[in-house]
């Protein structure tokens, strides 16, 4: 793919349609998406938790060869439903059609394409680091404190830390722990919702 993607300047924010209509009338952009217009998108899908629902959603993403960076599934405020947050790269136009294709899945109740300005987004990570020397432990605890991370498990050899925040913050935290020897990192991927 063309790597001018991030330098494309501020493209107009895509209109997020109200949930009640679900219908698109007009969108910006050309259908033949010009190269270099792809960027990261955060898509939130609310779906009924039924047999095959996740398959169908992933099936659409797979068929479109979406380049997924994160895919998080969890419950939301409605019983019997799941909330999925997908972070992926696509062009503006491509992603608009993807949103419509996701809406066609019978199990899908609602789809939103969130922009950076509109959303709050966080992810959680568990990081297991070596802590066989007491001096290390203290340093790690101090560092964790600095990042607002919690210690969730302690053994003689390891400390397991939990951190939440933006991807950048998680990455920074992981980076700063590199020196102690990281054994395992588990990241949830982004979950997001609209502000306000």
């Amino acid at each position, binding site marked *: 793919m063309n790597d001018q993607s991030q330098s494309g300047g501020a493209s107009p924010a895509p209109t997020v349609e109200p949930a009640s209509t*679900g*219908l*698109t*009338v*007009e*969108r910006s*952009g*050309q*259908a*033949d998406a010009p190269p270099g217009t792809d960027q990261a998108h955060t898509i939130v899908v609310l779906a*009924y938790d039924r*047999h*095959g629902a996740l*398959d*169908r959603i992933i*099936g659409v993403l797979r*068929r479109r060869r979406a380049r997924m960076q994160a895919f998080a599934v969890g419950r939301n405020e*409605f*019983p*019997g*439903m799941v909330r999925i947050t997908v972070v992926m790269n696509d062009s503006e*136009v491509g992603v*608009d*059609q993807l949103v*419509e*294709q996701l*809406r*066609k899945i*019978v*199990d899908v*109740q609602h789809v939103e394409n969130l922009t950076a300005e509109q959303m709050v987004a966080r992810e959680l990570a568990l990081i297991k680091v070596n802590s066989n020397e007491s001096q290390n432990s203290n340093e790690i605890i101090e560092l964790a404190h600095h990042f607002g991370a919690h210690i969730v498990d302690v053994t003689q050899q390891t400390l397991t830390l939990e951190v939440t925040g933006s991807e950048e913050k998680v990455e920074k935290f992981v980076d700063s722990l590199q020196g102690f020897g990281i054994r395992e990192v588990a990241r949830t991927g982004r979950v997001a919702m609209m502000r306000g």
Partner: protein
Amino acid sequence: MYVAATITQKPEGATTYQAHRTAEAVEARELTGSQILCEALVREGVQFLYGYPGGAIMPFYDALTSYPTLHHILVRHEQAAAHAADGYARATGKVGVCVATSGPGATNLVTGLATAYMDSTPIVAITGQVARPFIGRDAFQETDILGVTQPITKHNFLVQRVEDLADIVHEAFKLARGGRPGPVVIDVPKDVQFNTTQYRASAPVSSIERFRATRAPHPSAEAVARAAKLINDAQRPLIMSGHGVILANAYEELYAFAEKTNIPVITTLLGLSAFPETHPLALGMPGMHGPAHVNRAIGESDLIIGIGLRFDDRVTGKVSEFAPHARFIHIDIDPSEMHKVKRAAVPIVADAKEALARLVEGVEQGEHSTWIDEVRGWEAENNERSASIERNQEYPDPICILEAIRAETKDEAIIVTDVGQHQMWTARHYTWTRPNSHITSGGLGTMGFALPAAMGVKMGIPDAIVWAVAGDGGIQMNIQELATLRQEGITVKVAIMNNGYLGMVRQWQHFFHNGNYSETPISGPDYVKLAEAYGLTGVRVTKREDVEAAVQKAMDTEGTVIVEFVIESEANVYPMVAPGSAITNMIEESPTHE
């Protein structure tokens, strides 16, 4: 009508399938899953089921004999069951039904489901599944058919409890025919077919979450007004009408719209017969094998009004050079079709019938005689050139075969084509006048479609004369269905255009692979003897002058008749647009090409 409950009111674990149960207090009976399946099919008004029994669907076949209104047709291969259900659906607008057992039975349906999915036709496929305790354990004849069919169905269900079965069947029918139609699979484990529960004949439920998949949105007044303005202002407008017009039964509205605006009408392959080709505004088919003047008109047009079509690559050729001067009004029931290929200046997400009716009210009387004369001028040039080419007069010629069928059936036949050269010749040269008289596999291009689909068409419209037109390659893909036609006493007239080649592939080899006819010469059986072996009638035609008599004989003979026309072996379909090339850049017929 749908159950007016919000999501928050839904109790945990409960499915909406039970939501309506209290609404109608009808006497409950204790029935098995198989009986419930039959009851629900009867309630849906199902007449015909095309299927094939096997281990995991046997309880259903056991119950079936107690429901005499459900007429089951035993096909000879499950693929044919899906195509027959598809043909029935295309001809009648009703949901076609096919049945298969688990494993190989279900996987044999796959091509038929994919065909229906690509062409948006409503079919419900019922498949047996191994009993629930065996699912996922590689049981005998177990296939994860939900997983297999997930990308080629509108929706699919695994029935987990017999209590859900009736409502799932009604949901499946509603999903199949609602909104943009499509195939739906219901996978029923064998033990669910045996289990019993209280059954009440209940009103088909329409739950809130299925609403989007089944509705036909109304066109907004604002969009109609903007479209009308573009139409009124256009100098070189064209209507492009697709399968959506036929699915929406919008023939009259299309006619009224074309007549009021005086805009010429192009019909896509699946849109053929939606607009009478004898009408002065009818132009014909666009795209890869469309006549040159149609593609040229698209190239010159300033406004394309696309109705119920998806701008498939066989229509557009190279997208960036497709209708380069035109703005687009795109009417489609599926919002995901908007801007998919070409950006629409006015996208209208709506059922074609309603959108056209509103447009007819909204537009001014139009006049485009200069534009039409220009296009007709190009057409005349093409016709002149075509007439100047010397042709072989010895063999039965595809065009004269089609003319003979049309004349002999007094233009009342429904023609079901297979895939390949004969399909393009038929599409181009049959002069479609009767609405929905042309049935073919367009999107998927499924060889072997014609014969079983024609069976479904004939059963759906028993008064119609049904001709299956196929090549010698495609007919051999589902030829076993001759036995089904014979057993059921169904009359389909079959025309085989036999050129001893997989002709369309050979044509591509001729143009794009240096004439390297790799694996395209094909032999076949003696079709006359074959017909006789199946207890049917066969006729062979090798000379042009015998064509009419043979067609007449086919019409005069009772039952299914196979007419084999031995045509010129290396005839090509002209004009042709090379794949990926602009549609205005056509390979034309010339004496040197033969």
